[in-house]
């Protein structure tokens, strides 16, 4: 008996099509295509476009799971097309639709504006209260591996939006900030160089914030980078509760310890040896 996940064969692709200039509602189109072992959904789409359907639209860029552009609903699961091998899906019919929980721009292109807006709303950057130090830094902050570990996994987010597509709460409550933004809020709040909880509270400590999470965990399952945003939301809740009872982080837990002059000296000290050829 042949293994369905490796045997090259003809696969039927059911692709949801929608052209706002022509269509009033989305419809499904079917294409037959030969698929070889190792071929990704993204490669299959490129081949489809080249050989059968030149008007088919989707968004993609890096082809290696870094840019997060090619998120699609493949066989009813949000996945990156560039990381999903067609034969590994194990079905003779592969359905491809745009990510749910987003408006559809065209064919497989979702409108990711809500993702970006929610991400921006939580101020996803380090907030340090000394503006003079920010404008004219006099030294560098130190961060130990343990301090980095507090939030390390959340820095791997590539903003692909799969977690929002998988989230059952976003499906019913479009105003819910969602796992991506909330995990990023935690990522910066937990950073020992940050003291921006006060500035983020108006954006995150709201009804549509972390307490709306139903703990389904679908976001963590969908994340192509192995981030656990559902866990991030729970950690954010803990940080918010501690802050609300006065045990929150008041200032960065480290001070600048290395003046810039010493940094330059250290760099010179550990510089590579001069070139010999």
């Amino acid at each position, binding site marked *: 008996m042949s293994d369905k996940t490796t045997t090259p064969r003809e696969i039927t692709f059911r692709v949801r099509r929608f052209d706002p200039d022509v269509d009033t509602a989305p419809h499904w189109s079917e294409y037959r295509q030969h698929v070889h072992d190792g071929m990704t959904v993204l490669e299959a789409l490129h081949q489809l476009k080249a050989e059968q359907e030149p008007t088919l639209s989707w968004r993609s860029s890096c082809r290696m799971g870094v840019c997060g552009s090619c998120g699609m609903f493949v066989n009813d699961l949000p996945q990156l097309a560039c990381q999903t091998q067609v034969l590994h899906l194990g079905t003779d019919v592969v359905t491809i639709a745009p990510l749910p929980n987003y408006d559809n721009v065209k064919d497989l292109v979702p409108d990711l504006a809500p993702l970006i807006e929610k991400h921006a709303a939580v101020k996803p950057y380090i907030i340090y209260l000394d503006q003079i130090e920010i404008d004219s830094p006099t030294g560098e902050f130190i961060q130990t591996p343990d301090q980095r570990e507090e939030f390390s996994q959340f820095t791997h987010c590539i903003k692909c939006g799969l977690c929002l597509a998988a989230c059952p709460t976003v499906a019913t*409550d479009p105003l819910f900030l969602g796992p991506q933004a909330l995990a990023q809020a935690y990522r910066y709040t937990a950073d020992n160089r940050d003291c921006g909880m006060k500035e983020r*509270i108006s954006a995150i400590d709201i009804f549509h914030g972390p*307490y*709306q999470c139903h703990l389904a965990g679908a976001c963590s399952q969908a994340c192509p980078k192995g981030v656990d945003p559902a866990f991030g939301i729970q950690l954010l*809740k803990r940080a918010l*509760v501690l802050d*609300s009872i006065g045990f929150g982080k008041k200032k960065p837990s480290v001070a600048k310890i290395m003046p810039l002059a010493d940094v330059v000296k250290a760099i010179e000290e550990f510089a590579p040896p001069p070139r010999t050829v």
Partner: protein
Amino acid sequence: MRETRLWSWHLLVIPIIIVLLGLHFAIMHYAPVFYGVSVEEARNFETMIERGKSVSQLVLYILLLAAALYHGLYGLRGIIRELPMTPALGKIVDITVICVGLFIFAFGTYVTWWTFSYPVGG
């Protein structure tokens, strides 16, 4: 008010409800065990009025009412506000839930106080 505080209270009242509800069960449903009277006797009007005259009973039921109302209405508000709605409508839901809660609390407190101050001998 910060959502964190509302949510924290929602969780904090759970142990309070468990304790007070336990006392309520002991008084109303396990009267033969705790008070040595039959359930029917524990539930008849005269016994209830007599029991209602104790300050501890007054405090118990007003606290139970407040805790259960807060917990229940916070959950109900969460369910309703999860439906697609504008922020303005969300605000209206919040205000309505607060008003309903205050009304039920006022009514429940009135009934408990009425029992507490019911004249001896009817």
